[in-house]
């Protein structure tokens, strides 16, 4: 009896062992929890201790910040020459756009960034958002192209740098959305012809690299147009990027359409809505909202893909950097140039991917709420 009474009560909840607070315990847990881990910490720590101070010295403390070629030359590569960036940043950021008019693409880009920031929060997703974006795009074109309102006309062959990247991204994504929706609906259609045509297009375009599509745009589009008609090179590239992105957009929308519960379509049918009405009023609004984070990822991948237009001799941000590095004096400071452009891309892309994560979490909460309230 005493033995049974002495046994600890199995049903009573026991306290978990205390997780030791404080930095010392954190270090023990995360850096020295086992012998391999301790070894790794020592190795990586030693490497960092050697590399980091030298890197900071090279990047910041010893570097030359003024656009002084002589000072840079004297450095003999022992420190960074940010003077290259100071000297050439306008060429890199704006390409061959006329020097005196470069405020125009700058204002246009800032306008787009402001519009992006304003439409970031789901609270601003109202009916006026799409017309507002159309106005922003029109203002962008007007500012960069000129020819009206007292602004001098600038030939599209001279547009370049970051504004060109932004332009190609925006036009590519916004024009590929409707085409992608049509293709996704076609791919899920009951009609074999529609399904076959849409699937063929999507698989063919997704199977080839973007460079091939850009080559098609440069070499084949002029052959396809009737004699006497010709398309501006920039328009050709924008069209190529649009058609390419449309296939990927179609897959994104198709994912959304598949995630929608079948009950929605059945409910719409039971209400007497035709197929088109059901798609327009019930299916697409829900499906598109579901895939908004994937839209943002498409925006991100289009932004990165526009860097390929340098292969077909358009001077976007990457192409303009190569143009700047063509200067014989500053050729040798290519590391600083690539760090600068890499940092610009990194900042923009990191912001977009973080935003996409935040949006996913937020929309996840939002999508769950109707179920909870129904219950």
């Amino acid at each position, binding site marked *: 009896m005493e033995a049974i009474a002495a046994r600890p009560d199995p049903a009573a909840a026991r306290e978990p062992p205390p997780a030791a607070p404080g930095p010392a315990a954190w270090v023990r847990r995360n850096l020295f929890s086992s012998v391999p881990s301790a070894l790794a910490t020592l190795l990586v720590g030693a490497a960092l201790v050697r590399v980091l101070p030298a890197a900071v010295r090279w990047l910041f403390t010893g570097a030359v910040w003024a656009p002084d070629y002589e000072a840079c030359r004297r450095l003999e590569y022992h420190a960074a020459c940010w003077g290259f960036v100071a000297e050439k940043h306008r060429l890199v950021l704006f390409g061959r756009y006329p020097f005196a008019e470069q405020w125009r693409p700058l204002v246009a880009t800032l306008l787009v960034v402001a519009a992006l920031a304003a439409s970031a929060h789901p609270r601003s997703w109202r009916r006026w958002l799409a017309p507002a974006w159309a106005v922003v795009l029109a203002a962008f074109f007007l500012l960069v192209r000129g020819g009206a309102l007292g602004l001098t006309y600038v030939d599209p062959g001279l547009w370049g740098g970051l504004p060109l990247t932004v332009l190609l991204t925006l036009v590519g994504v916004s024009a590929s959305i409707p085409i992608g929706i049509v293709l996704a609906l076609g791919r899920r259609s009951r009609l074999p012809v529609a399904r076959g045509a849409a699937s063929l297009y999507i698989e063919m375009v997704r*199977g080839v*690299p973007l460079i*091939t599509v850009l*080559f098609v745009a440069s070499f084949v589009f002029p052959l*396809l*147009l*009737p*004699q006497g008609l010709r398309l501006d090179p920039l328009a050709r590239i924008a069209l190529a990027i649009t058609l390419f992105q449309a296939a990927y957009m179609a897959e994104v929308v198709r994912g959304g359409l598949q995630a929608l519960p079948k009950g929605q379509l059945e409910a719409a049918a039971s209400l007497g809505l035709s197929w088109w009405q059901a798609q327009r009023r019930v299916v697409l609004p829900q499906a598109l909202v579901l895939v908004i984070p994937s839209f943002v990822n498409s925006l991100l991948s289009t932004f990165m893909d526009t860097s390929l237009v*340098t292969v077909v001799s358009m001077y976007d941000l990457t192409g303009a950097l190569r143009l700047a590095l063509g200067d014989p004096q500053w050729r040798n400071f290519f590391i600083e140039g690539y760090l600068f452009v890499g940092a610009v891309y990194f900042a923009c892309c990191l912001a977009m*991917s973080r935003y996409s994560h935040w949006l996913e979490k937020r929309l996840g909460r939002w999508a769950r709420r109707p179920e909870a309230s129904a219950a």
Partner: protein
Amino acid sequence: MKAPLLSWSTRSGRARLYQAALLAAIALAAALLWRNTRQNLTARQIRTGFGFLGQPAGFDIGEGLVRYGPTDTYLLAFAAGIANTLRVAVAGIVLATVLGTLVGLGRLSRNALVRWLCTGYVELLRNVPLIIQLFAWYLVATEILPEASSPIALAPHVYLSKGGLQFPHPVWARGWAWALAAVPPGLAAAWVLARWARARRERTGRGPRLAWPAALLAVAFPVAGWLAGGAPHALELPEVTRFNVSGGVSLTPEFLALLVGLCTFTAAFIAEIVRSGVLAVPHGQTEAAAALGLTPRQATRLVLLPQALRVIVPPLTSQFLNLTKNSSLAVAIGYPDLVSIANTAINQNGQALECIVVIMSVYLAINLVTALGMGWYNRRVALVEG
């Protein structure tokens, strides 16, 4: 009364009407474009047809598995381009998978430093466009490495310079041919042995697994063949000549830059895939495996890995395809892959349409083969719902 085939009133009639209209629209658009193309081609007096494939191309291809000279045909040039593309794609896929798995597991490590380092690597490389990374790697290779006439010797007879990486390779002899011929029988024998051992264990419940003996058998056959062929051990060594290092296997800086750039870029994406695959397996599985008495190694091999692979394989397939497609960026740094050679061909003979058709068909074919292969593997690891 039976409704007519194309009627507006019945559902199927409407469906047929829509499809007929769609077909007609597509056919009309295709006919218009074809007519425009023909008109433009005749007006510009550009030749059409694939006859140019049999003509000498007149240009040289600097590197590759296929020996190509200026008197060889366009067809051989394209074949050399395809070989170069596959060469960088296969090497890239293997290396990227290895690196990506390591980095992905590193992101899950208990050690905070390793975790941060791997996270930093993934975030950095995923958010900078690939073409910038390739240009940067290429400039590092051509500006920072020493001149080809005075290379760094990484090891005896292994040289690294602006001219690329050169290392010795065995001189082809009968012994090597026999070793190569003995590889399939060796693998077959190893497989037979492993199957027999496994069948015996399943039947009687006893007996060793014979994994190591089977592996030894697979190696022993080629070694025996090599010995039987006279044990050739002559190596072709790279030598530093007046301008360059010549001899041995030569990997140009273009190939190296492309390979390193593609590997590091794709590894960042593969790391994410591996990480999400491992995280997708519920922790309860590990605990259940421990409760069953499996050692950690057995638990990983028999419980975690199969379930993780199920989640990993589909996105991994698309990353492999992306790597193959991204290898077309070789045209920017001067590596003669398929797109680069087709570009040169278009400029030499003006037949853009035919060359682009060739490029697209090759990529679609590679796509199809890879998708089929990975699809077979996916079905093997997929969940068989009971």
